[in-house]
């Protein structure tokens, strides 16, 4: 067993802080895109994940994800309440303390349900949201994390790889977003009224924070301060830069103007797509993934008008489509010179494809059932009067902007 190493521990502590900071970044990214009357409600949906998911992670979710293994499907309950998690590395055997590993993982568990918030913006009840993400963290996120990173069947039997969360984070959140959108229905006035972003500078700042935090997300997933972390850092940045540029190019070619929202959407799409592949591909691979993410996620925006579902802030086009793209392209582009755990080819691609179907299917079905149960019990949607008045006032009794006082 390796010793706990100071450099590795310092980097993962730093990365944990970087990943946590992505959730406020995401809150601003999303918040700027909703109408002014729903700004605080949007921020709150993200921030509340930092509270609720942390509690459930300590209580039970970490144990289900990472404590031992019960026939490949989930962990045991040996780590409930973080019992036995100490200053050493006796449990996981990484070169970082067990507590640091579980804290780093906690930050992923927080941002994943927060990603879903963009799809249900401007109409979901706050109480239903809190209950949804609390249960979802335990029965969807934790098992999925176990399958992929905790020694479960996706890693062991299927042989799929996921460096930093294409399956566990982005496809998982994207599939749940689709389920919730179908149960919730569209916002009042969607398709007939002009529903515009109220503050794009905040969205752009939020995207910048995401880009910054993503270095902790991906390079931190090397679980050490080493060459692989450096490679993941590099591929992450390249994919974001290429995808952002490709997106505004696609906008221009399709007859529009290059937009600021387009540039940052492209950056996030690139970051999503490189997430599963960051520690498996070389720079050229990252470039291809970035290019594909920028163009294909831009085209995927049309899905919601084609199929008439109101995915408020395009979680499906960016996270579901981007996540699938990255998980599959990794099967083709994985370079064993970067990481011996995966080599691009038909075997890896098949494993990746199967894992994508399982991740999407599991998350979609369980999320759909959970959403239906909430709808039939406490209700999942605000009243039309609350929706029209704005969720800031009707759900939180606050307002974002009182500039004249």
């Amino acid at each position, binding site marked *: 067993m390796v010793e706990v190493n100071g450099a590795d521990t310092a980097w993962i502590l730093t990365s944990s802080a970087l990943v946590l900071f992505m959730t406020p970044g995401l809150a601003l990214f999303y918040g700027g895109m909703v109408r002014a009357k729903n700004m605080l409600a949007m921020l709150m949906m993200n921030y509340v994940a930092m509270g609720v998911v942390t509690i459930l992670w300590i209580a039970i979710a970490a144990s289900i994800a990472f404590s031992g293994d019960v026939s490949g499907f989930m962990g045991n309950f040996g780590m409930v309440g973080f019992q036995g998690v100490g200053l050493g590395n006796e449990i996981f055997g990484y070169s970082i303390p067990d507590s640091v590993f579980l804290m780093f993982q906690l930050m992923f568990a927080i941002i994943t349900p927060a990603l879903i918030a963009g799809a249900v913006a401007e109409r979901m009840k706050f109480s239903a949201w809190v209950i949804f993400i609390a249960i979802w963290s335990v029965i969807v996120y934790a098992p999925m994390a176990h399958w992929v990173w905790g020694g479960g069947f996706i890693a062991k039997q299927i042989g799929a790889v996921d460096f930093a969360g294409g399956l566990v984070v982005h496809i998982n959140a994207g599939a749940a977003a689709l389920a919730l959108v179908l149960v919730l229905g569209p916002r009042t006035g969607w398709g007939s009224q*002009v529903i*515009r*972003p109220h503050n794009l500078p905040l969205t752009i700042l939020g995207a910048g924070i995401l880009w910054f935090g993503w270095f902790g997300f991906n390079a931190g997933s090397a679980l050490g301060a080493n060459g692989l972390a450096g490679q993941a850092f590099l591929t992450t940045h390249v994919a974001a830069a290429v995808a952002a540029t490709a997106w505004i190019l696609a*906008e221009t070619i*399709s007859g*529009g*103007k290059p*937009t600021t*929202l*387009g540039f940052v*959407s492209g950056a996030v799409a690139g970051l999503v797509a490189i997430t599963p592949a960051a520690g498996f591909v070389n720079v050229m691979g990252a470039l291809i993934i970035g290019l594909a993410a920028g163009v294909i996620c*831009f085209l995927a*925006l*049309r899905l919601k*008008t084609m199929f008439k579902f109101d995915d408020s802030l*395009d979680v499906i086009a960016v996270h579901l489509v981007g996540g699938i793209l990255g998980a599959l392209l990794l099967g083709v582009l994985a370079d064993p010179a970067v990481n011996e755990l995966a080599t691009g080819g038909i075997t890896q691609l098949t494993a990746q494809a199967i894992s994508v179907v399982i991740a999407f299917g599991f998350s979609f079905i369980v999320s759909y059932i959970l959403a239906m149960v909430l709808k039939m019990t406490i209700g999942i949607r605000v009243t039309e009067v609350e929706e029209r008045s704005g969720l800031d006032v009707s759900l939180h009794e606050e307002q974002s902007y009182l500039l004249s006082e």
Partner: protein
Amino acid sequence: MKLVIAYIAPFKLDEVRDALKETGVTGLSAGNVQGFGRQAGHTETYRGAEYDVDMVPKVRIEVLVDDTLLPAVISTIETTARTGSIGDGKIAVLPVEDVIRIRTGERGQDAL
């Protein structure tokens, strides 16, 4: 006494205010408004979705003037706010019954 209300293009505000000062106007109020007239709105695009925005931003200026100053005020606004293209705006003139300066209680022309 008259109240002159002018709806002008926002970028013309500074020019109109400076020109009105020179004609002898001692004060005015201005605010941002949105409206529509003959000027068509514009298109905005967010993530590929196009929206036609019908209401365009304008600035509304309100000036209280003495009848003797009225023709000069109107022609000043007219000439400075005019670009010749659609969207230059409108001027309305309303009769004013009385004006009271709150601080001193002066009324009528003295309060202007």
